[in-house]
């Protein structure tokens, strides 16, 4: 009786754990099956090479390039902010700051990631953009620059928290060895701790990239939702996520080409983020073998 009960409980718990795999299967399955009909109307070549994305217009054009362009542009700007700030902050917290002080600073930094993204959207549109317009007078009300900058600040804690964990788990004797041959704190940080923690730091960057690629509300609010094939950050643009929001706000009949187009966009986004995650796993494996 008791053994039977134990077995039953274990099975229930196992099913709960396995349900997380079902979530992934559900996401991939739904995105693929709902976007397949799209490719009956639109050829893959057109999808990948056309330079305009206007699926809801009279003369629809289905080229994903403008959306990819906007997505990459905002991600690159965000990373230019988040990676230097996050890495330096992590090195500072791990190598310079007293542990008691670090225990206070780290949670405060993590509050940055807790702020709802729609609030960041407000901040980008109504604070950062007017501020930037004082420096660049030609800047429009909607632009990728302020959205990217704000996303950058928002993902600093993702980068710094994981990097700091990785740096702190570097064994103390490596630091002592470095100090013993006369290296300064900064030399130790850059030539010993950061290389030793590199696999962990890489996964922190990858998580940051995933967050920036998938960030939705900031770009939907502040970047203007206009698909634009440009690499000029002062112009408005649409990202993949902003397009999905824009279309979802309207009334969308199930099975229409507009409905299919958001699934195609979502699938492209998933492929992008999964691609980066796999690169991250590969890099981490490679560096772990070296150690």
């Amino acid at each position, binding site marked *: 009786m008791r053994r039977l*009960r*134990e077995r039953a*409980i*274990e099975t229930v718990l*196992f099913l*709960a*754990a*396995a*349900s*997380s795999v079902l979530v*992934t299967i*559900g*996401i991939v399955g*739904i995105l693929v*099956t*709902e976007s397949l009909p799209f490719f009956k109307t639109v050829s893959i070549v057109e999808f990948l090479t056309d330079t305009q994305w206007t699926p809801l217009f009279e003369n629809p054009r289905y080229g994903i390039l403008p959306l990819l362009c906007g997505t990459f542009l905002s991600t690159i700007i965000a990373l230019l902010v988040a990676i*230097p*700030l996050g890495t*330096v902050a992590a*090195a*500072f917290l791990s190598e*310079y700051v007293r542990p008691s002080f670090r*225990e206070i*600073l780290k949670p405060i930094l*993590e509050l*940055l990631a*807790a*702020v*709802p*993204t*729609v*609030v960041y*959207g*407000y*901040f980008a*549109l*109504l*604070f950062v953009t007017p501020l930037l317009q004082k420096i660049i007078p030609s800047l429009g009300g909607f632009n990728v620059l302020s959205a990217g900058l704000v996303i950058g600040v928002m993902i*600093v804690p993702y980068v710094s928290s994981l990097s700091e964990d990785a740096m702190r788990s570097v064994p103390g004797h490596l630091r002592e060895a470095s100090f013993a041959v006369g290296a*300064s*704190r*900064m030399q130790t940080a850059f030539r010993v701790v950061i290389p030793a923690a590199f696999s962990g730091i890489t996964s922190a960057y990858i998580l940051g990239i*995933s967050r920036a690629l*998938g*960030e*939705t*509300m900031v770009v*939907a*609010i502040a970047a203007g939702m206009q698909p634009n094939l440009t690499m000029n950050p002062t112009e408005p643009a649409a990202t993949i*996520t902003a397009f*999905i929001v824009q279309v979802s*706000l309207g009334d969308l009949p199930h099975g229409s080409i507009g409905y299919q187009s*958001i699934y195609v966009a*979502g699938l492209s*986004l*998933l492929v992008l*983020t*999964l691609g*980066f*995650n796999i690169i991250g796993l590969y890099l981490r494996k490679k560096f772990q073998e070296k150690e």
Partner: protein
Amino acid sequence: MEVQQDILANIKRRQMWDFVFALCGLMSLLFALITLLTLIVDLSMTGVARINYDFFTNFPSRFADRAGILSAWVGSFCIMLTTAFCAIPLGVAAGVYLEEYSKKNWVSQLIELNIINLAGIPSITYGLMALGLFVYKLKLGQSILTAGLTLGLLVLPIIIVTTREAIRAIPNTIREASYAMGASKWQTIRYHILPYSSGGILTGVIISLSRAIGETAPLITIGALTFIAFLPTPPIEGHFPFVNFKWLMDPFTVMPIQMFNWLSRPQPEFHVNAAATGVVLLVMTLIMNGGAIYLRSRFRKKMKW
């Protein structure tokens, strides 16, 4: 003599660089914190004046000064309840299984890898999945139930990971002591492991709910309305069986979507409303996160194994 001078100069130079780097570190921390502070101050300066009793008890309206967030906060509350109800049992059970039962084989490795991967999947794809699966395939409609399930799945990895961390912190001696008294595995978990790790699990639950309350994109995708001037069906009624679950099937709006809606209007008066909603949201998430940080540090101090 000259060599010594060189060394001294070298040391001085390196000390200077050390100092410069420490300054850079401090600056980047300060930059991040000052941005957070600016955001809070900017939002409060615009929004706080708008927050009063009417703001919480009025429905949205065409007139900015009469509009309120009643349907939005009630919606947020109902969805939080549904999310908690589906995500907590599932997440805790999964965490317990992975930490206490799972053997090192490909199934458990697949599950672990999958949880890492789920954390990197953009939240809007959860919304797309929910639209296809819950709304159209399972016919749950654009309802509170759909929204709660969507956010539940979204925060599931957070609960699993924090549950595992909390359980991992319990030393093996506790388990051995329990087995020595003749307890079964489940009894050990039920009467020892779970109660001792409840602090850590609670921290994860609070963090996941604070994440869910600010989530906007997946709910827009499943078709949340931006203008709702009624409340869900009351869950308690005068006749048998006294409770009903009709409210689960009602349409909804939530605070972040209300804020987004006001923000995308051109009139600045509505931006004031958006700021006020932002203040409410921010206060709630900051309180929840503060609570989680407090709990974490308290339990870490108290539990010296």
